[in-house]
Every structure is written in structure tokens, then in C-alpha cells.
């Protein structure tokens, strides 16, 4: 079993990892065809990953209901919401899912009148919590915190039209903060993350990093 669960996936990762790394530098037609085929495989696998994601979600909520953990009642709504949406999605306005997508179906209505306002509401709640958190915790406790606070105030005002109305220099200073210190910090983080990704990729290709294979039998 170990051969199928560990050795074969490691061989696949090694061969495909090296092959696709070299493919990037070979502009030959056969190399481009290989990329086309492999990316199509990847897209198909990603499609199945969505089913696994849905299964995992339902499995988790089913366990919550079964074990009656705190707040299990909310999990029922996951099944009700998903069930209704899936049914209307498959019905496709009476034309069923094997036909072309129909416009103005009940599925569209659910999206427009349930998912869109619910999603927007969750996002808008952030403004309230941010205002409360800023009032309670954003303190100039030391030199670094004071610099951060001043920068935050300038950027906050510089990013809305009222900043220009207060002073024409506020947006200019805000733009400088974003284009110089922010850029330097972001680039440093980006380079660090990229080197980390390269190192991890090499470790996966050569079988040093095996966490992706999972544990157990």
C-alpha cells in the first residue's frame, strides 16, 4: 500500500515537476502542446476538487448536526440553502441542466436576492467593526506606533476626495507613502515569499517535503 500511497505520487511529482520546469524554457511546438494538455488535465482535476470541497462542507455540517455541537442549528440552513439552490440550478428554468443556461431562472433570482445582499451585508459590517477597533486600540504607545498612526491618518484622508478639500498636499503625501515605504516593504515580503515558494517546490519535486501526501494508512 505504501508503494501506491507514497512512492507513486512522489514519482509523479518528480517527473511532472521537472518536466514542467524545463517546459517553461522550451518554445518548441511539442512543448507548447504538452503545456496545453497538462493544463487541461489540471482544469479537469480542479473541477473534481470542487466536488471534494462541497463533500467536505456537507460532511462537516452533517457531523455538527449529528453530534449536536454548539450552534448546530445553523448547519441545517447550509443543507436547506444548498439543497434549494442546487435543485433550481439543475432545473435550469424547466429546461434542465443538460440544456444551455437559461436566463431569468429561479436560480438567478436566488443569487440576486439572497447571495448578493447577504454577501454585501457581511462585507459592509466590517466598516462598523473597524471604526470600533480603531477607537479602542489604535494608540500612539511608542515611536513605531506613532509613525504608523500618522501614516494611517494621512493615507485614510488621502484616499477619499475630502482629503483634497482639506489640503491639496494630503493626497500627494499619501501617494508618496504608498509609492516609496509601502512599495519597499511589499517588495521585500514578495521576494521573501517567492524564494520560499521556490525552495518548497524544489523540496516537493525531490521528495524532501512530503506533507502533501497526507498521513496515516
Amino acid at each position, binding site marked *: 500500500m505504501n508503494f501506491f500511497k507514497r512512492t507513486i505520487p512522489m514519482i509523479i511529482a518528480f517527473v511532472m515537476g521537472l518536466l514542467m520546469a524545463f517546459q517553461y524554457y522550451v518554445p518548441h511546438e511539442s512543448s507548447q502542446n504538452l503545456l496545453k494538455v497538462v493544463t487541461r488535465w489540471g482544469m479537469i482535476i480542479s473541477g473534481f476538487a470542487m466536488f471534494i470541497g462541497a463533500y467536505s462542507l456537507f460532511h462537516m455540517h452533517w457531523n455538527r448536526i449529528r453530534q449536536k455541537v454548539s450552534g448546530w442549528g445553523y448547519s441545517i440552513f447550509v443543507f436547506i440553502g444548498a439543497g434549494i439552490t442546487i435543485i433550481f440550478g439543475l432545473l435550469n428554468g424547466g429546461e434542465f441542466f443538460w440544456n444551455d443556461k437559461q436566463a431569468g431562472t429561479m436560480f438567478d433570482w436566488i443569487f440576486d436576492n439572497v447571495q448578493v445582499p447577504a454577501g454585501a451585508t457581511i462585507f459592509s459590517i466590517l466598516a*462598523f467593526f473597524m*471604526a470600533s477597533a480603531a477607537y479602542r486600540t489604535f494608540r500612539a504607545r511608542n515611536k513605531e506606533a506613532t509613525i504608523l498612526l500618522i501614516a494611517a491618518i494621512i493615507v485614510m484622508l488621502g484616499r477619499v476626495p475630502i482629503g483634497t478639500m482639506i489640503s491639496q498636499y494630503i493626497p500627494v503625501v499619501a501617494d508618496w507613502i504608498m509609492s516609496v515605504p509601502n512599495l519597499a516593504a511589499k517588495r521585500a515580503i514578495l521576494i521573501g515569499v517567492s524564494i520560499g515558494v521556490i525552495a518548497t517546490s524544489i523540496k516537493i519535486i525531490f521528495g524532501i517535503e512530503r506533507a502533501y501526501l497526507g498521513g496515516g494508512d
Partner: protein
Amino acid sequence: MEKLLKIDRRIIFIFVALAVTIPLLFRFKMSVPPTRHVISMYDKIDSLSKDSHVLISFDYDPSSKEELQPMARALLHHCFKKDIKVIGMTLYPAGTGLADKAITEIGDEYGKRSGIDYVFLGFKAGSSLVILNMGEDIYTAFQKDFYGKKTAGMKALKGVSSLRDIDYAVNLTAGGIYEAWIVYGREKYNFDLGVGCTAVMGPEMYPFIQAKQLMGFLGGLKGAAEYETLVGHKDRAAAGMAPQSVVHVLVVCFILFGNFIYFTTGRKK
């Protein structure tokens, strides 16, 4: 004074609610002078000739709709006004409804027809793999459009076989997918790319702008409002500038007031 620091957060919520609703009710307008990154995107699209191809990837879902949908609408107004062919797509499963609505609504305003003047390719799973596949052959990545029509031979895609043939691409994003568009799209297939993102993501774009990997950038609702100003079609984003400005000022006042109490009550010790 110290009690003010422990104020019930619902009072703060009431202030925020008033700061949003009052400017909306009284509808006071603010001028939104366009900034250089927004002008850069506008100029790029404006320089394109009739029947050029602009790809818009609507990579966001309803939670980011309030910031990104106005951007999408403003961009579509500009493209359709200039008779540019729009290729719409999304790498977010929940992005299809919003993208479809934006393209069809604005398209109808200008009398544009699906498959001829624009095409909406819909959603495909795989993120960066989809971009790579489109870079090799757009028709293998999307054999049919969102409505099930075959993409091969579609008038809206005439002259386009891969991402290399796109005149300009805009990624409207609420997540990290813009990096895939830069690395696997723009860098590999050499097309001009712009990004529209939520305000909170804005700072992440500056290294790519300086490296000229991004040509044009719209940040948050203000970016959308600036683009609306340039297009001459003030809509939701421009209307949202007044409440957003007032809320920003309110948050600044909260921070200053909080610090004032903090220091006057001797908390520093």
C-alpha cells in the same frame, strides 16, 4: 474621561450608520479628480481602435461587489462607447451572476449583442491553469460561452486565438488571483494588463506598477469613481464618495479622540 474609552460599541456603530446614511440622504456631491494610475488605464483603453479586444476577468463574488461592480460597469461603458469587443470571464464560481448582469445590462444600453460585440465565457475551475491554457489556445480553455454557444467562429472573438492576441486585459479582483494573471498571463504571453481591486488590496499593487508589469490600476470605490469621472458617466461609485469620505473622517476623529483620552487619563504610564 476614562469611561469614554469603554464606551458601548453600539454607540460607535450608530455614529458610523449616521455617517453613511446622512450623506446618502442629502446627496451632496464631491469632485473626484482622477489620479495617475486610473488615467493610465483610461488612456490605454482610449487609445485602442474600434474592434480591438479587451478581456475583463471578473474575479470577485458578492461580498466585494460594492467596490468592484462599479469598476466593471465603468470599464464596460468605456469599451462599448468605443466599439471595443469585450471578452468577459471569471475564475470565481460566484462571479458569473455579477459579470453576466454587468455585461448584458451595459451591453443593452449600447445595443451590443452577445457573440458579436461581446462574449461572456463564464467560469472555469483551475485559476492559473485556466490562464496558461488560454495563453496557448483560448478555444480549448473555453469551448463554449456562458450560454452554451460554441466559441469557435464567434464574431466577438475574431482574430483572437490566445491571450497573445488580446489588446488589453483587466483583472477585477478581490483575492490573490492577480498574481497569477501577472506571472502566468502578462509575463508569459506578453499582453498589457491592468488591475482593479478592493481598497484594502491596493498597497499590494505598487511593486508591480513600478516594475511596469501593471499598466493601470483602480483601487477601491475611489478608483471606480475616478474612472466614472473620466468616462463621463457618474454612477454608483461617484455617489458613494460622500459617505465614504465622511466615514473616513469619522474614523480619523475616533482615533484622535481615543488617543486624546488615552494620554489625558495618564494611561501612558
